[in-house]
């Protein structure tokens, strides 16, 4: 250590040198590193920001994706590096995956981002890209959601890695998110393989300190190096690809056994814990004294490290979130261990849960404090449609019709809750349209209405609409066009006229697409005009023809504007029927015996005025176009 270098700086340097470097991307000497170290910048970053930073430093020139919590901010941060990086929101994850795959085969380093269920949509290209292999590094960033904070299921992406026979990296904090992105890119190029980088809600949305590095680009030129036997998996070339895939896996196994992303922390030898991802951080708090094998590059498994740890400790415990993948593998090596019998496999883990597991492991009763009575009976605070939300008008009108509503995923999913209660099913994106056809063809006695959002329509609604037209269906499909992908934080999509790069572009017309799909009855309405909504609905339902209603009004939260004038309920005129409370509007509150409108919250949509039978709700005047605080 040279004089003048403070101990902390030295620690940073050691950490910096130790942090994983992608093979072939960084070759630096220690003096070089030391100079760099002096200029190392540390920043607080979320896991998603760190993944974007890692992609930038790794020389990525193209990033694609489709929004989905908790993955969305990866691309939103990567696009800040434009024009060095081209980014796009693709219409769905399959397209996003294929665009990035094309770029990679052309020689460019690329990433694609999505939430866990997005990989189902992109599974087709994933399964065969692993046969083809890549040229420029290719990393699919997939974010899981243990505990289902904002998802319809909690599937475990690690299964896809073994299914598709590709390597997977699992960071446990922001620094690792950045470092593993760099290493994943290196592994991808060295072995010509797509790589999955799996995050989770807690990794993506926690913030911690990250050391920044420089961007480095490959020397390779962009351009196809023609080689059909390599890139065309027709059976005669596909079979050899399958052979090469197995060869590649052997190499990858050696790489994972050598990787700095996997490490053993030797401490007390009575217990050895094998863990990965965010669970590692919880383990360190719940079992500070235990020896730990921390997996960061977990497929193919670093078997030699598993053997090294397990043969050096008395007992072995596996701590993993979601599926029992590590446990199954350790047992398949003939090694005794405990896991799921101690640590829950449903929902997310936490230090608290692991402290309970530890108590159980040590044969003690977990201590769960009982909720004192003064903290009981609190009013729940579920998310609700914003004041002024355009979706509310459609649910309100649907309440007048005895129909089955096949719904979909977006802000409008909130229409499934009471008192709106106007959505009967949700399966996955796009199913709002296709399931309507299934109900109707099965002989559902009621008329069927399918509901999807605009972003969802472009994502996977169009093919369902084609099905209805082609197979002579008769459902009514409503597209709730709020001009944005609201649920995930207001991203643009093919209908908004703006790209992720911030450029103006053509805005695709949902009506034109509907007509081109073969739907003849196409209507455009405003969801704030309740009588027209009801009339149009009746006309469509009675026609016996397939129909498409585009309900168009921009999301007021995105626009940061009130829809119209603030309303007021006259205490004298109000008869106390409470019909307006059925709107589930956050601005309408009970004031002793009668409803009252909270002026700060009012979105000015005027629905209460239209449904009030006593004519008690009316506009106050002047505030049109004000900024809404909601």
């Amino acid at each position, binding site marked *: 250590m040279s004089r003048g270098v403070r101990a902390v700086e030295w620690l940073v340097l050691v950490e910096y040198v130790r942090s994983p470097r992608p093979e072939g991307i960084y070759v630096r000497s220690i003096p070089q590193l030391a100079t760099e170290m002096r200029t190392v910048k540390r920043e607080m970053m979320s896991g998603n920001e760190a993944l974007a930073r890692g992609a930038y430093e790794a020389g990525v020139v193209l990033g694609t994706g489709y929004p989905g919590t908790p993955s969305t901010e990866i691309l939103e941060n990567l696009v800040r590096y434009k024009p060095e990086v081209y980014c796009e929101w693709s219409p769905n994850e399959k397209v996003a995956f294929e665009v990035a795959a094309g770029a990679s085969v052309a020689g460019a380093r690329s990433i694609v981002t999505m939430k866990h269920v997005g990989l189902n949509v992109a599974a087709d290209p994933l399964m065969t890209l692993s046969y083809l292999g890549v040229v420029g590094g290719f990393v699919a960033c997939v974010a899981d959601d243990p505990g289902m904070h904002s998802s319809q299921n909690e599937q475990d992406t690690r299964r896809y890695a073994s299914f598709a026979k590709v390597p997977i990296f699992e960071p446990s904090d922001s620094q690792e998110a950045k470092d593993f992105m760099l290493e994943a890119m290196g592994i991808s190029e060295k072995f010509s393989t797509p790589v999955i980088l799996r995050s989770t809600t*807690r990794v993506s949305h926690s913030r911690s300190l990250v050391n920044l590095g420089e961007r480095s680009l490959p020397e390779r030129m962009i351009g196809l190096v023609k080689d059909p036997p390599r890139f065309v998996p027709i059976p005669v070339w596909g079979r050899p690809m399958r052979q090469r895939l197995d060869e590649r896996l052997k190499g990858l196994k050696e790489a994972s056994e050598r990787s700095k992303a996997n490490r053993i922390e030797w401490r007390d030898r009575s217990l050895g814990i094998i863990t990965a991802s965010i669970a590692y*951080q*919880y383990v360190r708090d719940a079992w500070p004294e235990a020896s730990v094998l921390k997996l960061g590059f977990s497929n193919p498994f670093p078997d030699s490290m598993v053997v090294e740890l397990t043969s050096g400790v008395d007992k072995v415990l596996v701590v993993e979130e979601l599926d029992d993948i590590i446990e199954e593998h350790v047992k398949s090596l003939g090694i005794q261990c405990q896991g799921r019998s101690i640590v829950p496999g449903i929902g997310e883990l936490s230090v608290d849960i692991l402290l309970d597991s530890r108590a159980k492991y040590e044969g003690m009763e977990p201590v769960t404090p009982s909720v004192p009575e003064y903290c009981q009976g*609190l009013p729940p605070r579920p998310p609700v449609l*914003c004041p002024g939300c355009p979706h509310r008008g459609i649910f309100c009108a649907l309440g007048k019709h005895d129909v089955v509503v096949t719904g979909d995923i977006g802000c409008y999913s909130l229409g499934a809750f009471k008192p709106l209660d106007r959505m009967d099913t949700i399966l996955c994106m796009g199913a709002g349209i296709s399931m309507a056809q299934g109900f109707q063809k099965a002989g559902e006695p009621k008329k069927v209405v399918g509901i999807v959002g605009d972003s969802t329509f472009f994502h996977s609604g169009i093919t369902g609409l084609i099905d209805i037209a082609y197979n002579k269906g008769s459902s009514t499909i409503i597209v709730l066009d709020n001009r944005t992908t609201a649920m995930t934080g207001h991203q643009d999509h093919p209908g908004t006229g703006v790209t992720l790069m911030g450029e103006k572009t053509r805005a695709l017309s949902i009506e034109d697409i509907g007509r081109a799909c073969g739907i003849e009855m196409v209507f455009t309405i405003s969801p704030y005009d309740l009588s027209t909504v009801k009339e149009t609905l009746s006309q469509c339902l009675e026609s016996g023809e397939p129909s498409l209603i585009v309900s168009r009004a921009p999301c007021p939260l995105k626009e940061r504007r009130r829809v119209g004038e603030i309303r007021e309920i006259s205490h004298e005129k109000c008869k106390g029927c409470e019909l307006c409370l059925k709107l589930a509007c956050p601005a309408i509150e*009970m004031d002793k015996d009668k409803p009252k409108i909270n002026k700060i919250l009012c979105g000015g949509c005027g629905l209460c005025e239209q449904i009030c039978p006593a004519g008690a709700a009316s506009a106050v005047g002047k505030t049109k176009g004000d900024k809404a605080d909601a």
Partner: protein
Amino acid sequence: MRETQSVVLAGVGGQGILLASEILAKAAMAAGYDVKTNEVHGMAQRGGSVVAQVRFGAEVHSPLVARGTARVLGSLEQVEALRFWEYLAQNGLAVVNAQAVVPVTVSSGSAKYPEDVEARLRRAFSRLVYMNAAEEALKLGDIRAANTVLLGAISKGLDLPIDAWQEAIASSVKAKLVDLNIRAFELGMKFH
């Protein structure tokens, strides 16, 4: 300081909890600590509960705070303070803004907002600062600084130097709002 310090901040979507947690994290960073934070995203902006957790110390592992370990629980809404009571350590400091944000479950009549909320808070938290942060912020002319007032009161329960807080505020809010927020912070510090 070897031991990791944990803070839980609660409130309702739109109240500025996430900015408050950012300022706290930056203050801890400016004081030379390792820092981790976690926040709930997604549905939060649709009026749901928001909770942010901040941990700092020599080396922080979990970004999530364990039950009964937070030195401070700060809440911009009363019921939300009760909702997250279990995070607070036995001798921890609770700072609660005396404000009720009525959830839709209450306005639609399916649930009740507890009328005895102050009494409940006093029973739940032995060290309680019950203040009107919004009113204090209004004195300075901007109700949005309520979250910084809250931070000022919270700072009493943590070992972070004042200049770290000031640096954190200066780098987190718009230039023209720095002075106002520093004054809001100082106002909050007066509450015990």
